[in-house]
C-alpha cells in the first residue's frame, strides 16, 4: 500500500478546516509540550521543525551563523509570512538556541502573534514534576486570559484522553511498522502527521493503515536512525534506494516522543507525567547510560545492523553524547555512522558516498 491511497491531508488544509470551525492555531517549536492543554482551549498545535528548504536569509538579522538551521528557519519562516495563519507561537525551552529564539520573539522581533514560552525541567525528581505542573498551569492561565475560556477538569481530561489514545495509536504504528508494508518515506510521512493532525484525525488515519494488511512488507537492511529530524526527507528515499530500511528510530520528532499515559487525576500533574514518560532525551538531561541502554535495546529489538546518527549542525545536545554513544555501540559490535546536515542543503553526493560505504561495511 502507498500513502497516496490514504490521502494524507495537507498542513494548510488542516489549518483552514480547524479555523473554519472556530478554532485557533499555535505554531509549536521542538520538542516536548502538552498538546492536550491547547486542545482544551480549541487551539490546534502545529509543529514547526524548521521547516526545511526555505529562504532562510531573513533570520540573519537576528541570529548568528552558529545557530542551527532549525532555529534559523523557524524565524525566517515567521518573517516571510509562513505563520500568517497562526495565532500563537509556543517556544519550549529545549536548548540554548531555542531559549535565544524565545527571548528574541518576546523582546525584539515584531510579531502580532502571542508568544508563549514553556520551561521544561531538567530535574528528574519530584521538584521537576511539581514544577512542570506549575508551568503548564501558568500557560493555562495565560490562555484563559486571552481566550476568555476556562476549561474545567472534565474538559481537560477529555482532551488528555484523546491525546493519550493518539499516543497509543502512534506506538502501535511503531510496533507493527514491519507489517505495514510501508517504505521509509511513507512510514515517516505517516507518523509525522502527528505533528499537525488533530489527535482524533490521527487516530482515524492510523486505524485505516492498521486495518489493511500489507501485500508485501518492505525489506531492506535494517538500521536505526538517531538524531533530531529526518530532513531533508529525500534522505529516506535515498536509503530505500540503497536497500536500507529504517527499522527503529531515536529521532527527537518521532521515536523520542512515544509518550505513556499518566495516572494522576490532577490534569496538570497528569500532563507532566505524560511528558516525562518518553524515551531518553539529552535536551532533558537524561543520563548517557540511559541513552546507551535505549539505543542498544532499539538495535536488538529491530535486529538492526547499525546506527546512523543524523544530526543537525551546531546541535550541542546531540554532539556532546556522540563519542560515548558510538564507543559504547562499537563495544557491542554495533557499527555506527555520523552525518551532519543543514536542513536547507540538498543531500550531497559526499553524504551518499558515506552512507553507501557504511552499507558496504555492515553488509
Amino acid at each position, binding site marked *: 500500500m502507498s500513502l497516496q491511497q490514504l490521502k494524507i491531508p495537507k498542513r494548510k488544509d488542516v489549518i483552514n478546516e480547524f479555523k473554519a470551525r472556530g478554532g485557533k492555531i499555535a505554531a509549536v517549536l521542538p520538542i516536548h509540550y502538552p498538546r492536550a492543554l491547547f486542545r482544551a482551549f480549541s487551539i490546534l498545535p502545529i509543529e514547526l521543525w524548521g521547516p526545511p528548504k526555505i529562504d532562510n536569509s531573513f533570520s540573519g538579522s537576528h541570529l548568528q551563523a552558529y545557530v542551527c538551521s532549525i532555529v534559523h528557519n523557524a524565524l525566517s519562516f515567521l518573517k516571510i509570512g509562513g505563520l500568517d495563519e497562526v495565532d500563537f507561537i509556543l517556544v519550549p525551552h529545549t536548548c540554548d538556541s531555542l531559549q535565544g529564539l524565545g527571548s528574541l520573539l518576546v523582546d525584539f522581533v515584531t510579531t502580532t502573534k502571542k508568544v508563549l*514560552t514553556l520551561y521544561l525541567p*531538567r530535574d528528574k525528581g519530584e*521538584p*521537576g514534576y511539581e514544577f512542570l505542573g506549575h508551568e503548564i498551569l501558568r500557560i493555562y492561565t495565560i490562555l484563559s486570559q486571552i481566550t476568555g475560556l476556562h476549561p474545567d477538569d472534565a474538559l481537560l481530561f477529555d482532551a488528555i484522553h484523546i491525546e493519550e489514545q493518539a499516543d497509543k495509536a502512534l506506538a502501535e504504528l511503531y510496533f507493527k511498522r514491519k507489517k505495514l508494508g510501508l517504505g521509509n518515506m511513507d512510514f515517516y510521512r505517516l507518523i509525522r502527521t502527528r505533528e499537525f493532525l488533530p489527535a482524533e484525525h490521527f487516530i482515524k488515519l492510523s486505524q485505516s493503515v492498521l486495518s489493511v494488511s500489507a501485500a508485501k512488507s518492505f525489506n531492506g537492511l535494517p538500521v536505526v536512525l538517531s538524531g533530531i529530524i529526518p530532513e531533508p526527507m529525500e534522505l529516506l528515499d535515498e536509503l530505500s534506494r540503497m536497500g536500507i530500511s529504517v527499522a527503529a528510530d531515536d529521532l527527537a520528532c518521532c521515536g523520542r516522543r512515544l509518550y505513556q499515559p499518566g495516572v494522576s487525576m490532577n490534569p496538570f500533574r497528569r500532563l507532566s507525567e505524560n511528558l516525562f514518560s518518553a524515551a531518553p532525551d539529552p535536551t532533558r538531561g537524561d543520563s548517557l547510560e540511559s541513552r546507551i541502554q535505549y539505543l542498544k535495546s532499539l538495535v536488538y529489538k529491530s535486529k538492526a545492523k547499525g546506527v546512523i546518527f543524523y544530526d543537525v549542525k551546531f546541535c550541542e545536545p546531540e554532539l556532546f553524547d556522540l563519542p560515548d554513544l558510538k564507543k559504547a555501540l562499537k563495544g557491542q559490535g554495533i557499527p555506527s555512522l555520523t552525518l551532519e546536515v543543514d536542513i536547507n542543503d540538498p543531500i550531497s553526493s559526499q553524504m551518499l558516498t558515506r552512507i553507501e560505504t557504511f552499507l558496504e561495511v555492515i553488509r
Partner: protein
Amino acid sequence: MSIFSHIKYFMNVKLGARSYIMFNRWRNARRPLRWNTKYLAPPLKVDKITKELIALHYLDGHYVDGRKSVAWVTSGAPVEILQALGYYVIYPENHAAICGVKRKVVEIAGEAENAGYSLDICSYARTDIGAMLSGKSAVGTLPKPDLLLACTNICQTVLHWYRILSYHFNVPLIIIDTPFIYTEYSDADIEYVKNQIEDSIPVAENVCRRSLSFKKLQNVVKMSKDASELWLQIIQRGTHIPAPISAFDQFIQMAPIVEMRGKAATVNFYAALLREVDERIKNGVGAVVNERKRLLWDNLPIWHRLRYFAEYFGTMGISVVASTYTNAWGELAPLMDKDRPVESMAKTYIYPVLNRSAGSKLGTIKRMAEEFHINGVVLHSDRSCKPYSIGQIDQRNRLIHDDRMPALLLEADHNDTRSFSEEQTASRLDAFVEMLGI
C-alpha cells in the same frame, strides 16, 4: 584520610609553595611591566597576589587526594553548601580559561576533537574534556572529582558537558536547574530551585561523609556576599573619570570571586584590591594613561587575546571601563541573605544576566552605559556561548538606533584561537575607532 597525605600536603603545599611564591615574587619584581605599551598604567599591585592565590589553589588541588572530597562545579553554581561541607572545589571553566590565556587550547582541545568531540561544541568544554582524556593542562593535573555540580543558570551546555563528566568519572552529578527568566520569575520558579538545592544537600553530605552545619553555611554565605559586594564596589569605581581599573584588569582579577567564593582569603583579597583602586582614584591614575573614550565590553573575554585588545585600545586612548560579564559576579550580591541561606541562594542563582532575557541584557547594557559614561559598546559574538550571544545583533541595532551609541559586533571565540581572525578583527576595530571620533 591518611596521616601520610597530610604530611605530603604540608611538605609540598605549606613549605614548597612558600618557596615557589618567593621565587615568583622575585621573578615578577624583575619584570614589573605587564603591558607592552606606555599608554597603560602599570599593573595593579595585587596582581601578584591574584597569581599566588590561583597558583596555590591549583597546587592545593595537587595534594588534595585523601584529605578532602573534590567537587567540580560550574561557574554559576550554588557552591556555598559544598564550601561549608569542606569540599575542595574546582571550576573547569576557569581551568579552561587559564589554558586559553596560556594559548594551550588548540593542543588540549585537540585531544577531545581526536576523540570525536565536534568543533561546534563549546571550547571550554572541549578544553576540559581534552584535559580529562589526556591529562594535559596548563596548571598541572587536576584532582579527580568525587562529586559534580552543574547549574543551568549559565547555559544548557553545562548540562550536557557534566553528564559526560559523570559518565567518565562515574561519580554522582547534582543538577540545579534554574528556569530561564523570559520576563520575570514566579514563586514556583524559586520553589523549584530551592527544592533542588535542599535535595542536593544529602547527596553532597553522603559523598563527603559529613553533615552540613547550618552555622558554617551561614558563615560561607556571609563571606560570599561580602566578597561579591566588594567586587561590585570595585567595578563601580570604573564610573570615575579616568577609570582606575579596566575590564581587562577585571577579567584577571575576577578569578577569586568565581573560584574561591565564600572564603575569608577572598574577602581580604578584594578589600586590598578596593584599597588600591581607591588609591589610584586619589592620585588621578587611570588604567589608560590618556583616557579619551570609554567602552563597555559585552560577553566573555577573548582569553587568548586579552593583551592584544588591552594594548590596541590603550594605544588609542580608549579605556574599556566595564563589562557585563564581570558585573555578573557583583550585581547579585544584595540578594544573598545569611539568615535565609537556601532561599536566598535560590533567588540569587536564578538571576544572573545569562539566565535573563535578551531584552533584560539590553537594559543592563544601557544602564551601565549611562552609569559608566560610555562612548561605545563592543559586543563579542562568542561562537562558544550561545546564551550570551544570541540577541546581540538586536542589542547592537537598538543601541545604534535608539541611543546613537556606536556598537561593534565582533565575531570570535572565548577560547579557540582558530575561530579568530586577527586581520578581520583589526580592520573592524580600526573602522569602529574612527566612528568613535578618534
